[in-house]
């Protein structure tokens, strides 16, 4: 059985509650043990880095240090949490001076960063650690005929460059195929949704959301699957405003990939937080239990 330290992040506490619920359910079903960090703090999304770089590293390092205590690799379902934790881990490992500086602060909470663990995104855990074969073997309700647009967003892939596929990732598609759904190809799958701009530069963000929805819809998507609470909120909750702003009539459900997985694994819809959507996830109804 695989065990990881689980860092849900602030978004999953409420806004992305269904992500949290479905994560817990699907991992349990697939024999992955998630041990929630006992007193995690916010990773700060991207805004920390607007204000103070060292502070940003410190906050992320606190979570890392707690995971190190348990000697578990850290898994984050939120792309921003993942990216911040991943790069904090990387920079601190590579730069002992920086690590020393940060450790000085961590002392106040009796913690220490030593660079023992790795940071993974939840979807990586499914694709690499659990494995597509294993997932396929556990599917009891294949989502046959469901046309899903996999939406990667930015920070699962970027700015990491050691992925050979930063420009042309396929693993999300593979995962969707493994649960029987039909991943639709659409060119904007890796493009930014403008999530971090939605409060500060609404006009830009809404137009980015529109482009994405348009591209997914043009290519026949029934639902969009995301792997990040920010992307989910952005693409789903602002559809109405996009429609107002641009005179469009989008109504595409945006769900978490874990919710789709949950359905395929035969977990009841309720347990997966299905029903909390603002844009109703009607295309999922035939597969729900």
């Amino acid at each position, binding site marked *: 059985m695989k065990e990881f330290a689980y860092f849900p992040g602030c978004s999953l506490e409420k806004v992305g509650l269904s992500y949290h619920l479905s994560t817990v359910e699907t991992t349990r079903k697939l024999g992955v043990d998630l041990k929630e960090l006992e007193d995690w703090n916010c990773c700060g999304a991207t805004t920390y880095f607007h204000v103070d770089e060292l502070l940003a590293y410190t906050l992320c390092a606190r979570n890392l240090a707690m995971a190190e205590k348990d000697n578990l690799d850290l898994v984050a379902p939120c792309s921003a949490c993942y990216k911040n934790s991943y790069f904090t881990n990387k920079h601190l490992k590579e730069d002992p001076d920086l690590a020393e500086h940060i450790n000085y602060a961590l002392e106040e909470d009796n913690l220490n960063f030593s660079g023992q663990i790795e940071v993974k995104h939840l979807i990586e855990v499914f694709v690499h650690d659990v494995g597509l074969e294993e997932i396929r073997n556990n599917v009891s309700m294949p989502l046959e005929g469901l046309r899903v647009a996999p939406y990667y967003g930015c920070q699962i892939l970027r700015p990491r*460059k050691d992925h050979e*596929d930063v*420009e*042309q990732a396929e693993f999300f598609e593979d995962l969707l195929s493994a649960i029987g759904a039909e991943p639709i190809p*659409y*060119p*904007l799958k890796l493009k930014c949704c403008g999530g971090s701009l939605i409060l500060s530069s609404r006009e830009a963000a809404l137009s980015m959301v529109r*482009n994405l929805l*348009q*591209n997914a819809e043009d290519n026949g998507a029934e639902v969009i699957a995301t792997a990040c609470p920010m992307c989910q909120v952005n693409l789903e909750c602002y559809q109405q405003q996009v429609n107002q702003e641009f005179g469009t009539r989008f109504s595409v459900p945006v769900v978490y990939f874990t919710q789709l997985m949950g359905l395929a694994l035969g977990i009841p819809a309720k347990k997966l937080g299905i029903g909390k959507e603002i844009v109703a996830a009607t295309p999922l109804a035939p597969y729900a239990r």
Partner: protein
Amino acid sequence: MSEKVGVYICHCGTNIAGVVDVEEVAKWAGENLEDVAVSREYKFMCSSLGQELIEDDIKNEGLTRVVVAACSPHLHEKTFRRACSNAGLNPYLCQMASIREQVSWVVEDNEAATEKAKAMIAGAVNRVKLHEELEPNLVPVNPNTLVVGGGIAGIQASLELADAGYPVYLVEREPSIGGHMAQFDKTFPTLDCAACILTPKMSDVGAHPNINMLTYCEVEEVSGYVGSFNVRIKKKAKYVDEEKCTGCGICIEKCPKKVLDNVFEVGMGYRKSIDRPFPQAVPNIPVIDTESCTYFQRGKCKACEIFCPTGAIDFEQQDSYLDLDVGNIILTTGYDLFDCKAMPQYGYGRLANVFTSLEFERMCNASGPTEGKIVLRDGVTEPKSVVIIHCVGSRDENHNPYCSAICCMSALKFGHLVMEKTDAEVTSCYIDIRTTQKGYEEFYNRLLEEGMNFIRGKVAEVTDAARLPGEEDKLIVQVEDTLLGIQRRIPVDMVILMAALEPRADAKDVGLQFGISCSMEGWFTERHPKLDPVATMTDGIFIAGAAQGPKDIPATISQGAAAAARVQGMISVGEVSIEPVVATIHEENCSGCRICNTLCPFNAIEYLEDKEVSYINAALCKGCGTCVAACPAQAITGAHYSNEQIFAEIEGLLYDVISGNGAKAPRVEREPVPA
């Protein structure tokens, strides 16, 4: 007998004297360093007057050793050795101290520079006293030459040598010579037809009495040294008897098996299982590809054999080997094209109408897969608009940092061809247009006049996601026009990627096989980037063409000719002198422990089973000194870099420290105890 050392300190104008107090140093050396008979400073030691100074002192003062403190020995060691030689002193009794590159140019403080210069001179003086007279070894040069790689570089080199009357073996691993140039339609900047200028040269090679063309062959093993290399060549089975085949091509016609040609046609066209790469191939002998041949795969067919009028098909043919003795080797193995799939943002392999430069070359070629018509992947539609993307995989730290040198010009050539053959609008997206050779900028101007568009900006991506009106069913090229500072989306029908030139995938292995080194990227390393671009660190091995670095055909030809000229020089002198900086094993001290046996990359060290000692073949030894440093019995000495010489240099360099602590050597003599 103590030596008489002459010390010469160069001002190098003000280069040295501006920082180092040369008068003071000269005086100090004369007064303080043991055995220094003459110590002088002079404005320009490398000038003929400077050299005369040394020569006169050797003759008049009877100097037995010379130290020149000046620039780096890489610059003028030869000069001062020659001066010694002229005055009758063995040239190896001269030593330089680099007080320009290592002192005056790099030290800020004048006093510190003067101090460092003194130490460097003390080291040189200490060392030179232990130098030995050395004589270069002479070995004869075999007049045969091996040329590896039958591209335009190899063709040129072979013809030059053959025309000069020397035998050449030209080894090419493909079934025909010609290399990349044979794939092109036109060549910049004059737009001559590639075939028109290449084919005659190829047939000259094929027909030349002095050239033994070995196509479909590979070098298996190389041993020996300059003047006498032994090479083993593997002749891959062609399954066609070269003696009998007349090149009529009936077998090709009759062969029922068609396969995609990924080599010559870069996946744009088809070939038969028995085929030659292109109609003008030299030699004009087809080769059976066993991977696809029906007979080899399923045991049935033999159509080619049945129809061949001369009975040349031989399914039983085996790989064979050929051993050659040659005096020199020229490597002209060329380049590979960058794999554009490594930059998925440009869509190659995903978006049908994105082409590589080489694909486009084949498309333009009248004998190519589209018979010279410029069309989209569907084979019929003419593009109405084309974007050419520069620097794909070049000038990019994520791929290759260097400029591939030929793609700007090729892009201009393509622009011209597109506009000549279609009505399409052509746009080049570039970072810089690099047109540095004769006639190149003029060619750029011509394209500007012809109406080709230019946008300064490296393309960010090519997509088929339409967003704006007019983008539907087009490829959209997204780029910043950096001269305007705006992002542009250009909808077009066709995109051509000017892919980087890369070292051959096997370049490092080939380098190792021939005992030469490669740059970090994999280009063969020349002996000197400016002064000796076709020789390598291994004597007798030369390089030419794109194997040395990206270059165009004129430069490739020049190098091919230059390498051939170097080889001719070697052959006409008839013998070659080998640097005497070599290692020697003293048999009486060698215990035959065999530690050294694996250490020499040039296989200079042998173990003599009968005597149970190791032995160094001086002709193979390059004098690196690794074995010298390794021998636990200290049975190996390295000429000109002996332990004693280096110890003496260390002592000299530390002259000021040693005298400070009184611990000159561990063994101390004491006054006798008073009775």
